[in-house]
């Protein structure tokens, strides 16, 4: 029997995103978002939907591909909205993202699209970076928040070298790590000296939001 309870816009968007139904998701976004208030759309609709999908993934109730596609659909919508020269999100830090040492980019892409969908601009350094190269890049771009994705345990442990170098040089960079090794060993992010660990893309976004609010 169908429920007669009205479906909330967040729930409707989440359902459409989980089904990778781009058309329905865009309809919902067009219906409930005001083009002159993209930030309201992000904070009131997109972020809660993506957060819920991220939580589902952490619990094993959604797949990584759904998290990835959901971010992409929302990112596409946000990119189509008029933005001020400063970007949609006011007072945002300088954000960078990279994959340390290997070429598995899905985690990075998922976090990047979720950040973009939430109105953040992100400097993408790509994959296969060594600590030395990455350190030069983040210094040069004056990055304030760095997201680091790793797949292999060895790469996760290499974050320690980056953190040591950041501290040695007195840089003020918040490093947030993610990826399989950190999911399986929940103390690993502390061991390597990073500032935080994001279980999923939406948690990564919320960590920047916390910094800026």
């Amino acid at each position, binding site marked *: 029997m169908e429920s007669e309870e009205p479906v909330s816009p967040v729930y409707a968007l989440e359902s459409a995103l989980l089904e*990778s139904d781009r058309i329905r998701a865009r309809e919902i976004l067009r219906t409930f978002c005001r083009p002159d208030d993209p930030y309201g759309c992000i904070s009131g609709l997109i972020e809660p939907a993506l957060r819920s999908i991220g939580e589902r993934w952490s619990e*094993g109730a*959604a*797949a*990584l*591909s*759904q998290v*990835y*596609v959901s971010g992409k659909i929302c990112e596409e919508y946000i990119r189509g909205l008029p933005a001020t020269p400063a970007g949609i999100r006011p007072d945002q830090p300088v954000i960078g993202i990279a994959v340390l*040492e*290997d*070429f*598995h*980019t*899905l985690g990075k*892409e*998922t976090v990047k699209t979720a950040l973009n969908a939430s109105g953040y601009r992100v400097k993408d350094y790509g994959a*296969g970076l060594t600590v030395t190269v990455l350190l030069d890049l983040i210094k040069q771009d004056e990055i304030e928040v760095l997201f680091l994705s790793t797949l*292999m*345990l*060895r*790469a996760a*442990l290499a974050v320690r070298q980056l953190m040591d170098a950041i501290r040695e040089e007195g840089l003020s960079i918040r490093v947030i790590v993610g990826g*399989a*090794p950190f999911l*399986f*060993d929940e*103390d*690993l992010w502390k*061991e390597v000296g990073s500032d935080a660990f994001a279980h999923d893309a939406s948690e990564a976004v919320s960590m920047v939001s916390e910094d800026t609010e």
Partner: protein
Amino acid sequence: MTRNEMTSLERTLATLSHKEPDRVPLFLNLTMHGARELNQPIKTYYAEARMVVKGQEILRKKYGHDCLTGFCYGAAEVEAFGGSTLFFDNGPPNAGSPPIRDLEAISSLEVPDPRDCPPLLRMLETTRTLADRYGDSVPVAGVAISPFSLPVMQLGFSRYLDLLLSDDPIFRSLMEVNKAFCTTWANLQIEAGATAVVYFDPVTSPTIIPPDLARKTGLPIAREMIRSINGGVVYHLASGRSLAIADDLMESGAIGLGVSALEDLSVLKERFAGKMTLIGNLDGVSMRRWSAPQAEDEVRAALSKAAFGGGFILSDNHGEIPWQVNDSIISAIAEATRTYGRYPIV
């Protein structure tokens, strides 16, 4: 009553038949640790089949576990497609930049012959030597990456997902090439003497794609591949979850399943009992920081959840024990399995 001591092969075959052997078989997936034993850099170690054979022999003698393998590293399969491998001194080799840059090139992609790829040839030689020397008493595992998961290294993960989700005919073209390659590669290992092939298919896991999509893509491909492989096949989701596609996995034709530490072994046992032998699920990542008593506790917990009635092989949950796991912990796991894994388990 003490049961007669079985060989590793007898022990494994008994548990695969869902009978209780003398004790729970232990598969320590030590692909890199042989390099440490031989005091060689990992890259040098993998460069000669005779060294990997020696490494496997030393490790089995040291830990007394129940399997050997000629498998070295997954990126070798992508080398057959023109890819590269990055080597490190303290971890597994990794695939370099994805070799297929232009999706249009897939329509003219030819099926490479694994025998033309030096690292795959070395794995075959290793498998053959190990099978000749020990195949009558120890299982020798082969490994083939599924046609459905190989594109993660061929294209890069996000580009592959974009292709998979777009329902593009190019996806089907790529699968045809990969299926032909996978069948040849798996059967070459069987011909070389591998007791069974581990079909490595993380993308089909509900951790990566939704079950409905897996049922239209990865799972039918797996069934086709498992039928085409002339030997026993173990399905491995490489730490990915399995419960949401349990029925499909049980119908895949695979005799065993590598299960994740993300799922409760008791629930897995209940679901797969009598249908698929479970292989797992010690978490390799956190294993690095275990103490010896903790290793014993972890082993005992796994045994108590999944060993009864057979159909269980104790192993790590990913298919490879990280380089950073100390010998003392591996010894503690092996010792605890010998002590507490003897049937009947109380």
